[in-house]
């Protein structure tokens, strides 16, 4: 048991159970105001004045989005002569990216793309406040393998972009090359590199610079790592230099996954790790990742064999549907809905969120897929908002779709969602 006192209110929080311990401090389960909370408390030697000032600034700013487990209140442990902060408890459903890499969890592509979208969205909101995260890596991101919901932890190192307070430059292998070379301090631009590395890991199951050159290193050699990730970085799928390709038997994941993704995904990574390696301003911006993953999530096509495939509207128009990557049989495309230039595949687990309808609130789905109660083969788009939509059928008849009711998914139907209109094609 430990006791913490909130600053400045002076409320007491009993630390009931040690949840975890790391290099920087410990995390305790505590109770505040009748509910469970997490309390991070620093080891004495990490409880610096600069760190405390950093946390106070972070608390003052407030969370940029709900996916951040943000420091809420400063606390002191007067008996131990240290301090920490209160944050929301991370629910059990959120699992670490370490668990994902070790295949302890096997999320669907949909969950993975949703997590990627949420990460891009979260960091876009953080950066738009003039802040940078400084240490984007595996260790700080958790996600729900079922629905892709994300929680970003360890926000106590967040600070104004370009500052050195707290001294954190990042995690090896996730740091931007210019930070490894000590030519730059953490900023939104260096965060963008770390985010791209994280996304690459999530999608491809490996590091974008770990190819032939990495396979030749046989023991821990920090100068060799600095060369690999800082002084002479080379993308494993660089189109102009094939000398660092993934090695079969060593880097099998990127070799297997890279061809599965739509061309746009591969192009975004290529830009991140070719031009973006050397020119920070040319890195893929969070808004671009967000748009990309929204498109990719909406383009997931389930095959009858159970495998998820990615639908690319441009490829489909010119060449017809691809074969399933798993069973090699031709894919049967579900109905699609076009909203402006965006195509959403209306498969049974598709969901529409705020961004589909022009809103910035993506906390909860605004529509999902329902089955007709007496005709299970007839699918509908169920209105989960509080306002009615308008459905226009191909014959010109118009009906309201009140909250909780569904609009039939049928070719030629147009749904006016209020600010945007979607047209369904089969």
């Amino acid at each position, binding site marked *: 048991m430990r006791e913490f006192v909130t600053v400045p209110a002076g409320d007491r929080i009993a630390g009931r159970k040690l949840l975890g311990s*790391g290099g*920087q401090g410990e995390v305790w389960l505590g109770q505040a105001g009748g509910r469970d909370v997490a309390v991070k408390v620093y080891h004495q030697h990490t409880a610096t004045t600069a760190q405390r000032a950093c946390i106070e600034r972070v608390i003052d700013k407030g969370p940029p989005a709900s996916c951040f487990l943000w420091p809420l209140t400063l606390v002191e442990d007067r008996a131990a002569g240290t301090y920490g902060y209160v944050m929301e408890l991370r629910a059990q459903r959120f699992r670490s990216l370490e668990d994902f890499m070790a295949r302890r969890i096997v999320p669907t592509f949909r969950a993975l793309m949703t997590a990627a979208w949420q990460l891009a969205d979260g960091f876009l909101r953080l950066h738009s406040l003039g802040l940078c995260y400084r240490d984007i890596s595996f*260790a700080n991101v958790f996600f729900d393998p079922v629905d892709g919901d994300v929680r970003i932890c360890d926000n106590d190192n967040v600070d104004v972009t370009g500052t050195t307070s707290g001294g954190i430059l990042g995690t090896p292998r996730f740091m931007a090359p210019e930070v490894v070379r000590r030519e730059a301090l953490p900023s939104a631009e260096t965060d963008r590199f770390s985010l791209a590395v994280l996304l690459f890991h999530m999608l491809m199951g490996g590091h974008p610079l770990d190819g032939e050159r990495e396979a030749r290193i046989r023991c*821990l050699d920090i100068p060799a*790592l600095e060369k690999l990730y800082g002084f002479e970085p080379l993308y494993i799928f660089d189109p102009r230099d094939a000398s660092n390709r993934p090695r079969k038997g060593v880097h099998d994941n990127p070799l297997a996954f890279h061809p599965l993704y739509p061309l746009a995904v591969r192009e975004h990574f290529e830009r991140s790790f070719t031009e973006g390696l050397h020119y920070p301003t040319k890195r893929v911006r969070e808004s671009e990742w967000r748009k990309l993953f929204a498109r990719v999530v909406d383009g997931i096509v389930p095959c009858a064999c159970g495998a998820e495939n990615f639908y690319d509207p441009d490829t489909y128009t010119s060449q017809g549907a691809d074969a399933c990557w798993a069973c090699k049989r031709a894919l049967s495309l579900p109905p699609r809905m076009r909203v402006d230039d965006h195509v959403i595949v209306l498969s049974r687990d598709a969901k529409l969120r705020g961004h589909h309808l022009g809103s910035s609130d993506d906390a909860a789905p605004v529509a999902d897929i329902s089955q007709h109660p007496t005709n299970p083969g007839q699918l509908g788009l169920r209105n989960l908002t509080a306002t009615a939509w308008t459905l226009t059928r191909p014959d010109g008849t118009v009906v309201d779709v009140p909250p909780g009711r569904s609009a039939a998914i049928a070719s030629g139907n147009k749904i006016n969602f209020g600010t945007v209109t979607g047209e369904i094609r089969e």
Partner: protein
Amino acid sequence: MSGDLDRSNEAARPAPLPTLAKACVRGAKHVRDNRPGQDAIASAAADDLVALAVADGHGTSARADVGASLAVQVAIEHLLRFGREVRDVAELRRVQAYASHPLRLHLVRDWIDRVRQHANDDAIDLQIYGSTLLFALATPSYLLLGQLGDGDILLARAGGDLVRPIAADPANFAEETSSLCQPEAWTKLQVRVQPAPRAETLLLLSTDGYGKSYASDAVFEQIAPDYLEMMRADQPADVERQLPEILDAVSAGGSGDDIAFGILYWAAPKEGEAPCASS
């Protein structure tokens, strides 16, 4: 890639190094069936570093004894190299990052290379050599722990605090366990870095033959205060002399399995004495 700008984050002073005692016994069932022991243990102390590793070759694997033996050898070599290389890295989260990669990766790759050398066959089925691995590296600034597969790591402090620093891997269930022989095994090797103990602390590493000799984890964990008392009262060499007899009795009365068991002990700093790495 030492990226820490604020050296005030550094632990102010080096922590003392632990003393060590260890033993490995052939399980009662193995003795009865005239089978070789398949657990292994190794340790080393050099350059202000103390490294300890235990491994449990899988009972169903034909060369599990060799696999376990190679595992502890490789682990000790890599841990000592890691400790020498990651000496001046100020921030423990960076030590953790280096332990996560490339230490885990190189250690497992090296084990695979040695297995292939031993078999003189690059296409050898690694399962024949399957083994778990648990290790600890004590340095003046950090304690690095690692675990792949089943077994127990207990950290006890005077006053009764006892923690398992590495969370149980759900893949270790009944007689199933994660193993060095699995594809991408390095991703399943869990590593944790924490500050070097500065108060009296006991670390126990054991293969699963010890823990499964008891009715429950809670009962098994009662061994920690007993060993704390032994290490406090006796010289490590005296404790080490007693260990084979204790472990034989545990195996005979419990799991019947081999047991590899090691202890690291950080004595309480004497009053008025500033602990230092060379003490």
